[in-house]
């Protein structure tokens, strides 16, 4: 009897929790997605979109140069994500273990810099890393180098810019997942003789995997598209997928090709998530799907 009652009543909470997002996404996200899909099958007359159906845009994607740009972007995105995990985890851990007041202060202090325009902050880095910038001046004065070194306009600088722009998107979900850990569990593990490393690897890490995964999604995907980071920090010399798509929508004005590049990107991301789902096991446990 009771079971039945519960099952019947599930509809209302389900509707109240899920229908707002469903309606919102269908109206404002599904429609743009369909528009991109539609666009990706159209042609151009060199300048404007014409309504002639074609697969050419997808055929044009199989181009060694584009492949190379894709590979490069994925590499940068991978390292950005990895660095954010490694650098963000200890910080998030520290924040989660802090007292209530300190926690709030730490979180606010973490976010405040990001409320300043990102282009201006990246320009600040340019001043720091340039040939006559702080870093080079310091190293020269310490006589560690005799000639200014090239830091800006390299891949390393792009990576630094990416990590700098995206790291809160790793720290906050990590914090959310570490913070919920039952501290007595860790202590129990310690008391049972497991050393700290073992406790971390076998207890803490698996329990906070959802945070790592959420953070990785929010860093890996945007870093494929953040063309302005590559423009400002790398001098536009190493194109990322974002730059490639941006060029199609602006300078080249080839929207259909831009649309098909976007579709391919969306497709690749979904494949990655699905593969992960199939191999890495249960997304449900990870709280992602």
């Amino acid at each position, binding site marked *: 009897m009771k079971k039945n009652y519960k099952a019947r009543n599930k509809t209302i909470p389900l509707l109240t929790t899920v229908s707002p997002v469903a309606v919102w996404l269908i109206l404002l996200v599904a429609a743009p997605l369909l528009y991109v899909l539609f666009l990706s099958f159209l042609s151009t007359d*060199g300048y404007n979109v014409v309504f002639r159906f074609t697969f050419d845009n997808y055929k044009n994607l199989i181009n060694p140069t584009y492949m190379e*740009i894709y590979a490069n972007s994925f590499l940068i995105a991978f390292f950005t994500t990895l660095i954010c995990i490694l650098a963000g985890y200890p910080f998030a851990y520290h924040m989660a273990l802090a007292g209530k007041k300190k926690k709030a202060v730490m979180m606010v202090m973490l976010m405040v810099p990001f409320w300043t325009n990102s282009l201006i902050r990246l320009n600040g880095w340019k001043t720091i890393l340039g*040939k006559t910038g702080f870093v080079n001046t310091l190293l020269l004065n310490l006589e560690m180098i005799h000639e200014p070194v090239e830091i800006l306009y390299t891949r390393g600088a792009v990576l630094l810019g990416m990590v700098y722009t995206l790291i809160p998107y790793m720290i906050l979900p990590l914090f959310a997942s570490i913070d919920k850990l039952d501290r007595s569990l860790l202590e129990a593990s310690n008391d049972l003789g497991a050393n700290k490393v073992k406790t971390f690897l076998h207890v803490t890490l698996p329990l906070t995997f959802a945070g790592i995964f959420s953070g990785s999604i929010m860093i890996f995907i945007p870093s494929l598209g953040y063309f302005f980071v590559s423009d400002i920090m790398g001098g536009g010399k190493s194109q990322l997928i974002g730059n490639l798509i941006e060029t199609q929508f602006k*300078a080249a004005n080839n929207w259909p090709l831009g649309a098909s590049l976007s579709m391919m990107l969306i497709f690749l991301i979904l494949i990655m998530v699905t593969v992960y789902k199939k191999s890495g096991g249960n997304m449900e446990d990870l709280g992602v799907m």
Partner: protein
Amino acid sequence: MKRGKVILLTAVAAVLLSGLAACGGTQKNGTLNLFIWTEYIPDSVIEGFEKETGIDVQMQTFSSNEEMLAKVQGSNPGAYDIVVPSDYMVENMISQDILLEMDESQLTNLGNLDPAYLNPSYDPESKYSIPYMGGAGVIVYNKNMVEEGADFTDYDELFKTVYNNSMVVLDDFRSIVGITALSMGYDFNETDETKLGEVKEKMLTLKPNIKSFDSDSPKTLMITEETAVGLMWSGEAALALSENENLDIAFPEKGMYLFLDNLCITKDAKNADNAYKFIDYVLKAEVNKEISTEFPYLNPNSAGVALMEDAYKNNKAIVIPPEEIAKGYYVKNIGKTVDLYSEIWAEFTK
């Protein structure tokens, strides 16, 4: 909860602020919706126009022709009265039937323009566009950082290996492909595939020389002497030269890449009358002087230029010799060949 309150208060304050601003803006003689490039018209000019005519100017800005087109096409017809497209975009907007054929009798100050800029290739009878400001892709170099006898009036100088990793160039594929083609004796708007194949090979020898692609502020790298040579818009070049006396400018002999931005009225403009008034106001010599003083771009308004001081008139980065302009090229619609250009560009910048 307290934080919620603060946020709420801030929000309320914000609403009040924007409400106040909106009220302050209402005036009697109608409005004018102006859609123009960022940093392209001084506030004082807008204010002067509002004072003289009582028309309230609503300005919105854009930073690329394509974004502007997308926004105009996506908005309600007539949402913008005046738009400011560049040369090739004027041609395209005419073909898309977005622009209004202007009634020249409403523009009393048309005579202030240098006739050399009228009837351009993109609008042969100057029916839809009034030239506003422009520029040319010039070469700036640091006399102390290049070898004696280096001749930058020749594009080939840029391709020499001595300039390894010491150049800043426009982040614009038409400019790089175009000048490389010019250096080989081909057309700036080359469409021949075999020739473009050769152009690509030659471009790849330029790549090691480039330190940064920068269209927005290439002057910084030149002023700080982080780069020895720069291909940039003349407006930027003028600012660079005024800040570092080691810099000099060269106009390549084979012709420069030119751009010219134009004041146009949209076909469905709701305030076309006000738009005419605004364009005529901007064409006035004194007003034009105000604009030139703030923005050192190439200025087709010869009456305005005549009012400027000698220092301005003698600055060849600003007042480019007419014979150099006459040799220059505008970007043209090259049809499907543009796809080949963007492929070349992808390979060049990967």
